[in-house]
């Protein structure tokens, strides 16, 4: 599969590349310069539609690891309008699968997270009004609408807390945590899962490896076959 990976210089990007580069052909992109001896690279600003149109040409799938958390203009440029440009270009280029990524509160914002347990990823999205969550949530809504209208699958992977697999320091007993390399593997699984295993053209997955049961990862285990190799028990065991 020819895969276009956006945001490879993000924290998550290199782990996606490591997990996907065996067996797939990758085109790597970021808004900053990308260095790779092995893969095709390009510089893409997701808020520039012409950049995105040129970069998705000939690709089978797109992975979006881009993120902007704080700047009030760039957050919408990247997280919201960037999703519009990614989806518009992907549909026009005949791309059949997009893997979008974001924080858990792009779906489960404060009105859920403050009160609820056993939260599944298929809840109606309510990110709230925080800049990061809201701009990502709006981008996800755009992805959902495109998937509802066109022959393209969008699989959105939600993350929150990441740990290095060899970091065994106690603390940060977080209910939505996964190791970086398991996160990269989840992206690969989302790229490779057969379309007939998906209930709809837009599916969301909670990607974590902890037993808190505040957020359910059952769908991720069952549909994607996610089997995290890293036990984060050092964070939550006494």
């Amino acid at each position: 599969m020819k895969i276009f990976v956006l945001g490879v210089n993000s924290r998550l990007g290199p782990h996606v590349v490591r997990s996907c580069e065996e067996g797939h052909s990758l085109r790597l992109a970021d808004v900053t310069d990308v260095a790779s001896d092995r893969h095709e690279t390009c510089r893409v600003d997701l808020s520039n539609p012409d950049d995105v149109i040129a970069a998705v040409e000939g690709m089978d799938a797109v992975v979006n690891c881009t993120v902007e958390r704080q700047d009030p203009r760039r957050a919408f440029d990247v997280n919201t309008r960037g999703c519009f440009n990614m989806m518009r270009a992907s549909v026009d280029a005949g791309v059949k699968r997009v893997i979008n990524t974001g924080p858990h509160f792009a779906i489960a914002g404060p009105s859920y997270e403050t009160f609820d347990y056993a939260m599944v990823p298929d809840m109606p999205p309510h990110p709230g009004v925080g800049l990061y969550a809201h701009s990502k949530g709006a981008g996800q809504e755009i992805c959902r609408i495109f998937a509802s209208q066109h022959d393209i699958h969008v699989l959105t992977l939600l993350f929150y807390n990441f740990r290095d697999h060899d970091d065994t320091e106690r603390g940060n007993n977080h209910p939505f945590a996964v190791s970086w390399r398991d996160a990269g593997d989840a992206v690969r699984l989302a790229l490779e899962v057969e379309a007939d295993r998906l209930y709809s053209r837009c599916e969301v997955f909670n990607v974590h490896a902890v037993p808190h049961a505040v957020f359910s990862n059952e769908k991720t285990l069952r549909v994607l076959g996610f089997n995290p190799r890293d036990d984060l028990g050092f964070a939550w065991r006494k």
Partner: protein
Amino acid sequence: MKILITSSASEVGRILVEGLGEAHQVVATDFPGGAGGDVVACSLDADDATEALVAGVDAIVHVADLPVTAAEAFGRVDNAQVDFHSRCTYNLLKAAVGEGVEHVIYLSSLALFASCDPAWDVTERWAPQPSTDIDTLKHAIGEFTCREFARERQIKVTCLRTGELNRDDLIRAVFKALSSPPSEWEVYHLESDGDGRRFDISKAAGAGLFNGGRP
């Protein structure tokens, strides 16, 4: 009541500035490309200008119609519309919350149901089914933004989804929405009487936003 009307240089904006001006103190605003005369130019960025724009206002009528000049200046019209209905609407509401504005009226569109079978009796209890055409998608994005502010109890929002609407019906609906106690989030469908009326407007009629009842 002191009312801020956005996109006031648009056709709908001009009608509302004129129609609401006798009963209310109206502040008209639009993008720099659309502003002129008594219209306050504001790009609805996350800055002091937007905060100053909403300071002291009791309610906002967010007409949300981006001037063509501003859209073209952006480079691509579809990107301009996404930016305006997401980022600019977010900035407007965020500033409104910060300045203690109680109520926003957001003008959306019944085009959100254009793909539905005309034989369906679509009401406010139906989920919007937007296409990816930017002239429809932009309203889905705007509603998404407004709904999150309402759901978080940050500000009360009345969402008026309009179809073909004559001048008097438009003024009456917005005037009544401004003068009624607002709910946290309320949606009304509005379409003037005529041969082509497609949508049930009985909820709006029942709330006094509209003359008449079911077509």
